[in-house]
Every structure is written in C-alpha cells, then in structure tokens.
C-alpha cells in the first residue's frame, strides 16, 4: 500500500516553468478581499489606488486555478505530476498545513504576476493523523511581477490523505 515513492521522487527538487496568473491584479479583486477579510467595504472610487498595495496574504489568489476553462489542461508541472500520483493512489483528501511567506516588494494594481512552483519534498512514509493516513507535500512558490522582479517566496505544505469516512450515500 501507499504511493509509488520512486515515481514521486522523480519530481522532487524540480521546478515548474513560469505560470502566468490568469488575471491582472485588479481593483475589484483587491476590494472584494478587503471587504471579506478586513470588513472594509469602501467603494473603489474612494480608495487611493496609487498608495494602495495588495495585502500580502492575498498573493496566492493569483495562483488559483479557474473554476472552468474551455481548454482542458493535463498536468505538466513537476508538482502537478507528483500530486496526480498521490491522488491516483487514493490520497485525494487535501488540507493546507503551513504557509510561510516572505515578501520582497509590494504588488500594485494592474501588475501581471507569474509564478513558479517547486516540489521541495514528499514525506517518505505515511503519516497517521486525525484526518487519516497520508503524505506531507512541501511546495515552494516564487511569485514575480511583469518586470521579472521576485516579489514573494512562499513555502506551502499540504497534507494529502485518504479520506477516513467518505460520504458514499
């Protein structure tokens, strides 16, 4: 049982090519974030957008996959391929367990971000937790803006596990 560790190991230490964020950094996305996180519903025309920088905690927003896309995209990046091996072995539960963010420069409205993801590691043995048995996956995100300047480095760990009591109804 467990995952084919050597297959996963092939992808460890490898980094994806630069992936473009789907959206430019937009006033509306920032405002929606502030409304929910800061409970600040100041309308866009009362915000000083020259001064306003993107809340650093929001950076991962621009790395999120779309809800739907007309083009189907097979996994190609090392971390995607490794996660697929883990998913296919039945460890399809996922929960974020740690996020360290380093911020080097502010993000402004209309920036076009891109990012790379490196698979830093996968735990070699199954870990038993309250959620179930699974593996820890460590990813490193480097986010850059359109000038090529790296603006943030983030270490993100997630736990991929077999769901204990799946709803089968």
């Amino acid at each position, binding site marked *: 049982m467990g995952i084919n560790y050597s297959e996963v190991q092939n992808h460890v230490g490898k980094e994806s090519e630069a992936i473009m964020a789907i959206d430019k950094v937009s006033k509306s996305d920032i405002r929606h974030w502030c409304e929910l996180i800061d409970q600040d519903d100041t309308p866009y025309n009362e915000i000083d957008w020259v001064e306003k920088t993107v809340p650093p905690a929001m950076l991962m927003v621009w790395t999120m996959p779309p*809800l739907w896309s*007309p*083009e*189907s995209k097979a996994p190609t990046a090392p971390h995607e391929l490794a996660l697929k091996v883990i998913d296919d072995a039945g460890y399809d539960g996922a929960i974020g367990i740690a996020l360290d963010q380093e911020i080097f420069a502010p993000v402004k409205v209309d920036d076009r971000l891109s990012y790379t993801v490196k698979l830093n590691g996968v735990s070699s043995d199954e870990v038993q937790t309250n959620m179930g048995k699974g593996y820890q996956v460590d990813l490193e995100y480097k986010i850059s803006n359109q000038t090529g300047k790296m603006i943030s480095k983030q270490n993100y760990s997630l736990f991929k596990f077999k769901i204990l009591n799946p709803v089968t*109804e």
Partner: protein
Amino acid sequence: MAEEIKDIYWEDVKEKYDLPQKTRVIDTTIIAAGAMWASHDFMPVHHDRDFAQGKGAPDIFMNILTSNGILASYLEQWAGPAAKMKTMQISLQVPNFPEKDGNKMDMNARVTKKYEEGGEHLIELAFSGDNNLGPHIVGTAVMALPTKG
C-alpha cells in the same frame, strides 16, 4: 478542447430552426459562485443553506442574474462573437435547486422570427431552461447577426 469560434450568418438562419440542446449541471458550487462571485449577489438564500431553509425553501437556489446569464451565454455561443444580444426577456418558474445526484438544466431555443429593422439583421428566439422539477426559465431574445454582404 476549446470550442471552435464560428459565426452564424443571418442569411443562413431559418425561422423554426431549433438550436442544439445544451445541458448544465446545477450544483451548489455553480449556484453559490454564480450569485457571489459572478454577479455580486449576496442575498443569503443563494449561498446559505440554513438561511434558505429558514425562509421556507428546501435548499439554496439560483439567482436571477445567473439564470439569465447562463441562457444568454447559451444563445450567444451558438451565434458566435459577431452577433449582438439586443434584448433578453425572461420569466422564472420553478427554482434551480442543487441536488446530490445532480440536478440538470436542459436548454433549448428556436428561431421564431427573422427580420430587418433599423439597418440591423435580427432574429428572435424563444428559449427555455428546464430542470427536473419543470420549466425554470422561459423567454425570448433578440439578436443582431452578421451578414455575408
């Protein structure tokens, strides 16, 4: 696979032509994302199951903007990007509820009229979206189509 982009020309459309049917799965994600994320509608009956049930509904249900948007999109994508939506006229009947085994909405439309007006080449379409409870949305739309001329 991306769908091919193609335009339908006014000359090629006949009255009583039936558009190919399309079906959408109606689930919690699409109802909640349609309300909050796509149309900025935070009325809790569209995303908060407990709230909706407290108001006498069996579950959350789709907001009007999303229903209108899905049908507008169905028609526009059939006609192609050179078409222009002029009017959407809708009435709503049974709600779109999510269901565990997957509620589906079948969308159909028919060209009911083909005419010229104000220098534009127009078609009128009658359309409907039906779910497993019955008709959810019925309406008519007017679109301007490109010509070969």
